[in-house]
């Protein structure tokens, strides 16, 4: 137990598995049969491409110069032009390091940084530029966009030196907006356990980024309380307290509430075309990534 406690979660990442996963990702992430064939991701970056791709509704954060006034006049709603991106993409991984990520004996945080590191490896392997933001109620750490192994190494060092906050603070996804580049790809890794499930933040990022991915990391015992009887539950981030009389029925209701929150989040992500995956610490990072990449392929296919 002691050895497991001191072993950093990033040590569990297997290089060979990452390479195998990269091959799968290569096919899945590049598979855009509706838009452009090829073995490299060609992302949409308005203003940086030449070939017209499509129109879409104007959203907060869009550049006014991209508005197609004719299309706007026809549809009577603001429409912007999108162009086919002919270069590799820029990816930002936003990792939640709020206090809620520290619970569950660190397993939640461990899984989150494993996913972050694995995703960064895959994206860098696909010749993308990757940046990392760790955030809570503010941006706590930032690694600018970079490419290559040295960028991956720098990301790993940042992840190794980062730990979730012990208490206080909040989870504000809005705080990341200032560092994100418009048209970039954004992956948010968080437990999304707030009263609003970070839905306003996701909506904002959906306007900034070309594509937004949301990975919800939950502890497998998120609703399991170790004590019974009269409990004073303290929100580790807001310090808000409520008193409950913990029973099996109460636990069941809490699990239902968690399922309801996840369902709402999933619907919200679907509404804003955000790729969403929910996982728990009972799952392996590789499985989670495969599920996400698979759903991403299906997601793109639906697009």
């Amino acid at each position: 137990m002691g050895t497991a406690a001191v072993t950093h979660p990033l040590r569990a990442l297997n290089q060979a598995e990452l390479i195998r996963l990269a091959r799968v990702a290569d096919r899945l992430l590049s598979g855009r049969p509706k838009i452009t064939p090829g073995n490299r991701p060609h992302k949409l970056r308005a203003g940086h491409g030449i070939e017209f791709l499509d129109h879409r509704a104007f959203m907060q954060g869009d550049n006014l110069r991209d508005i197609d006034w004719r299309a706007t006049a026809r549809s009577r709603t603001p429409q912007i032009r999108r162009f086919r991106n002919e270069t590799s993409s820029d990816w930002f991984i936003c990792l939640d390091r709020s206090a809620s990520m520290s619970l569950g004996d660190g397993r939640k945080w461990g899984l989150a940084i494993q996913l972050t590191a694995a995703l960064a490896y895959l994206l860098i392997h696909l010749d993308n530029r990757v940046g990392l933001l760790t955030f809570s109620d503010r941006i706590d750490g930032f690694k600018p966009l970079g490419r290559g192994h040295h960028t991956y190494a720098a990301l790993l060092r940042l992840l190794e030196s980062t730990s979730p906050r012990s208490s206080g603070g909040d989870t504000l996804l809005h705080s990341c907006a200032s560092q994100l580049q418009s048209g970039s790809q954004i992956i948010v890794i968080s437990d999304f356990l707030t009263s609003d499930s970070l839905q306003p933040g996701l909506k904002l990022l959906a306007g900034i980024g070309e594509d937004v991915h949301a990975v919800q990391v939950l502890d497998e015992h998120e609703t399991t309380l170790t004590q019974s009887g009269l409990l004073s539950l303290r929100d580790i981030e807001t310090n808000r307290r409520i008193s409950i009389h913990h029973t099996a029925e109460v636990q069941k209701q809490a699990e239902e509430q968690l399922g309801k929150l996840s369902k709402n989040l999933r619907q919200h992500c679907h509404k804003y075309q955000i790729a969403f995956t929910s996982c728990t610490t009972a799952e392996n990072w590789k499985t989670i990534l495969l599920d996400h990449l698979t759903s991403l392929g299906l997601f793109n296919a639906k697009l």
Partner: protein
Amino acid sequence: MPNFESPLWLLGLFGIPLVWWIHRFRNIGIDLPVSTVVLWQNIVCPENKGHRPTIADPLWRQRAVIITAIVLALTTPVLDSLPNRTAKVWFDHSLSMHTVEEKGTRIELGIQQLLSRLDTEEITQATVHSLLDFSHSLQLEPHASIQNKQALRRWLGTLPQTTVKALPTPFLSKHENWLVTDGADNRVQDWIDKARIDQIIQVGSTTENTALMLLSVRPSLTQTGFTGIANISNQGHKNSTRRLQIRAQDKAVGEWLFTLQPGEIKHHYFNIPLNDTGLIEARLLHPEGTTEDALANDDRLSLIIPSTKVAVTGNCGKPIQALLQALPGIRLVSSTSATLNIVCASEQPLTDNATIWFYTGGETQQINQLPFWNPSVAQLSQLSLQPAPLLVHTSQAPGLEQTLLTADGMPLISFQSTPERRMEVRLDINTPQLTEHPAFPTLVTGLMEFALEQDLLGRIHTIQRAPQETQITPRPLHIKNSTSLNDTNITASELTHWLIIAAIILLFFDLIRNKRVLA
């Protein structure tokens, strides 16, 4: 019921509802951190209605007790200490306390006021000590005034009537120290300051007193019997007229009337024409029409003049009998009870006590030289006995070890001190040349004084009073230092400490409980 020295602090108890109100906002139960309380916020339970407990944390009761203990400690509560009040009463029973006031003697007034005060102050345990000799004490029974009054009277009656000779210093203790006195002795105030008296019961107001201060008697050197002196003092503030009466053998031998100014002392000389007096008494009587003396105990002085018992046996002749009867303080008795035997015989007497043996046997011879005294006979060394016509018995020389008188090379008087003081005299006691000699009375008296080792003619018998004994004017007394306040504080602080300790213990348990919950 406890008393509160600072009762205003009790207003702090109105803050207890505030404690309850504050604890309504405190979440009850074991503290448990979670990622978000959103998962449980819609779960309705009695303790969590509206996301806020509807009942106060049960800990509010414990904290209310803590605050109550602290508030009560601030009020400095004093438990009703009356059941535990004990007192040491120092009772002055000196001569001045026998002064008669309007409602009785000062001692009686002191007893009444003491018992009344003990009841008023609700002293449950009191021990009365003699102020003059603190080894004498009397334990009073609680709530038994009548019995205590009788016991005090009996106890004080057994104590010697003396002045305040040695004032004791009571030990500082939890007892209260009370003093019953008239304050006539000026040393009492100093003692009060040193002894830390808590309460003073002062009795008496009379100031007028005339007293006999001195009675002194000695054998008269010029007349038959005794001569004496009596001192009378007026200690009051008004003129006093008194009659001095001298009594001997229970009979008045003289009376004199005096009027004394305030503070005046009269010296009166008198003669008692009796050789064997026994008891000599001086009395101060108040003439008719004058006020009776407030303190009668100092109006009498008496002396017992001891007699020297002398037995004369043998053929000593009338002169020596007449001489002995004329000497004051000499009583002629039989030889069995005598302290001095004067024997005139030719045979050596067999006696067990001091003896002067005048040898009467054999021939007599007139001495021609002046007799010479041994220097050891100091009182007779100046006595000159003319040689002619002094006759001495020469047939048998005195055989005792020390020669006191010699003439013509012959020892005339010899002496030995053991086994009993014995003197042999070769002077002819029956010859008129000796008995009619002017130095005869002095010679016999000197021999008797030497044999008895007593001053028969120079003895002075005196009895006198110290001036402060007869001073009855009460002086104002005041308390400088008191121990009772300290005792009260000790009682109060003891209760305060208990409350503080209780509060600390409860706080400690509260802290332990909170740490356990947080852990």
